[in-house]
């Protein structure tokens, strides 16, 4: 193709004419029809995945939903009891205690890990030696399997001979029962969750901060903004979209977090750290009451959907602004 013909082709292309010939102009075919045909092709390609998704996700969900309407156990399906499992479950004090602890655990887990993660992300933006090494080391709590970290934390706090109780005793706090005292057990589990989760938040915030144009900070400096003003008026609004996404994800992680709690305290002492997911587990797999257990899980899901929707709307609002 000669230089002249290339230039001509580009001209044609700008007018919507292909190299092979004039063909049909963009306006010749109704846009809607073209869109429909395109959608059909996409749907065809997606069909195998959709079928798999339905088989792998929808069927168990429907099956579980039906289980929650029956009074069966793990062996027999039981009789249809309507919504009585849901009604009975929400009338028990155990459910509301678990709901309350789930709320505390989630709020602490989300905002605690976010605050620590953001702080470290900001710190790692500064020019410190061995920055990369720090990043890798700080990721360890997230990378290490929870079974390992829970065992480590148990070793750290469980008995009076563990390192932390010895330290607290030396500091004059006496024999601190990190796992045996109900309130302290709750605090310990929440702190453990923050420790496990902050690297995830650090990564999310680091990537959000990396997208902030350095010139914005230069400009704010010229305008005389203080560090706090820069943080609250520039940094936070700019990373708000990532923040909301990380909050949504961490909320889901926290509400559904079974191993962190179960491996460290088993939900004890005396229900103190029994979150809704642990309650659902013990109802189904320790007490063999499938219906109420699945009902608890569905209630959890419903609440999660509401929270996620609210936060998602916040993201859309941020996008519009």
């Amino acid at each position, binding site marked *: 193709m000669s230089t002249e013909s290339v230039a001509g082709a580009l001209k044609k292309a700008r007018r919507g004419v292909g190299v092979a010939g004039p063909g049909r102009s963009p306006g010749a075919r109704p846009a809607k029809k073209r869109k429909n045909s395109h959608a059909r092709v996409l749907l065809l390609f997606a069909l195998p995945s959709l079928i798999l998704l339905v088989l792998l996700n929808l069927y168990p969900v429907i099956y579980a939903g039906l289980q929650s309407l029956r009074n069966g156990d793990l062996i027999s399906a039981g009789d249809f009891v309507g919504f009585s499992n849901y009604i009975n479950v929400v009338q028990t004090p155990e459910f509301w205690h678990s709901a309350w602890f789930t709320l505390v655990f989630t709020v602490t887990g989300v905002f605690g890990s976010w605050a620590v993660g953001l702080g470290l992300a900001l710190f790692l933006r500064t020019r410190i030696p061995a920055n990369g090494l720090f990043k890798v080391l700080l990721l360890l709590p997230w990378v290490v399997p929870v079974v390992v970290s829970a065992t480590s934390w148990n070793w750290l706090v469980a008995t009076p001979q563990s390192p932390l109780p010895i330290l607290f005793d030396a500091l004059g706090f006496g024999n601190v029962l990190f796992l045996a005292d109900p309130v302290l057990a709750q605090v310990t589990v929440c702190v453990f969750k923050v420790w496990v989760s902050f690297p995830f938040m650090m990564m999310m915030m680091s990537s959000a901060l990396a997208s902030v144009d350095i010139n914005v900070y230069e400009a704010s400096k010229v305008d005389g903004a203080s560090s706090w003003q820069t943080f609250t008026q520039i940094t936070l609004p700019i990373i708000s979209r990532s923040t909301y996404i990380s909050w949504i994800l961490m909320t889901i992680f926290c509400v559904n977090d079974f191993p962190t709690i179960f491996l460290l305290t088993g*939900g004890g002492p*005396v229900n103190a750290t029994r979150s809704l997911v642990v309650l659902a587990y013990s109802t189904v797999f320790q007490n063999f009451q499938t219906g109420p257990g699945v009902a608890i899980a569905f209630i959890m899901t419903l609440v999660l959907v509401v929270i996620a929707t609210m936060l998602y709307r916040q993201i859309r609002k941020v996008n519009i602004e």
Partner: protein
Amino acid sequence: MTSQSTGAAFTRRSFIGVAGGAAATALLAACSTGGGGGGGDTMKFWNMPWGGTEFNPLDKKITLAYEPKSGLPSAKYQAIQWANFTQTFSSAVASNTGPAVSSGGGTQAFQFANQGKIAYADDLLDSWKKDGIYDDFLPGLIDAMKTDEGYAAVPYNLDVRISWYNKSLMEQAGVESPKSWDEYMNVCAALKKIGVYGFGLGSGAGSFTGSHILAAFMINNGGGLFNADKKPDCVTPENIQAMEFILEIVKAGYSDPAAATYTSANVESQWKAKKFGFGWDGAGLPAGAVGDVAGDLVVGDPLTGPSGTKGGLYFPNNIMMYKNTPSQKGSEAFLTYYYKNMAPLWTKNTGIGLPPLKSIADTSEFKADVNKVKILADWQPILKTWAAPGGSGLFYNIANTVDGTAPMLDFTQSILGGKVDAKGALTKLQTSIEGLMK
């Protein structure tokens, strides 16, 4: 993992696995081509890793040495790991590809019996009455296998809950092994003076020993959780008295205040750190991670309660036969051979739990372990199952109401926390168990 600390967990998991199997039964059975239990001229024997690494190779050797009579199937050996074993059993049994004979979780036979999958051992036990094996069982073991329909299994190895003490610490405290509740209280007081706990146990994540010990004290006092109708009967004077005794121990500071949340590993570390001078655990405690203290650990004496009764809790692990077998006579013939030849599993110290047969307990090799001898001599005759005081045979509802269930764990943690009254805690437990039985 000691058999003592896992006994209850097996029970829980076995139930879950059976449940999964039940759910899959219809589908898998429809897909099955038969041939379960071995098919043709072989039958499958599945056994668990009951001891150390040397257990299964020796067990396999014993199994493969079986030479069946003409027309009966030979045996094929398969070691089944504890990890996900319930799923392994339940899916295999549901799809008719399971074993003809197996061991497994402590209440597994009763769960499968409830599903109609078990071949009852009545005929086998009748035949054993003739050849002497029946009379060779330690007292009370076979009764624990009895259901209304027949014997669901035959006893295999025993998981017991007993007292242990550190003889060096006891000497340091100037006390000897207690024989009654009053003496025990004095021992606890003496141990406290040297900064050691006298009521050592744990009831934390994954540890059911604490709940076993509380039930053991109830049985010790003539009580227990089920009546003769197999219904929960927790709020009895015997149980209240037993729990008031435990609460007294807790409030006096003889129990580790963190015990309610101790895992098995935490308990072992407390023995190792010489913080537990007297405590309650399984027969395998010295084999756990207790370090140098292992040599100082001695089995205590059964305590006599205020009303003069003795007792405790044990879990009779067992071997069961399945209906899905190439030959029921073949299953029975193999088990007869196995029980006549399984002694090396104990005499060669493979780490398996306590033996069910007197002839094994009488061997010089077994008698070399004085602690085990004492357990069989002093404890085994007085130990009972969860079914006490109403009965001795295990039954279906034990698994889903008391054995490692949330109400039982909550009850134990609340008693070990010391902030409840005995009657209130037992009443709550009664209500919870009744709720689970609905």
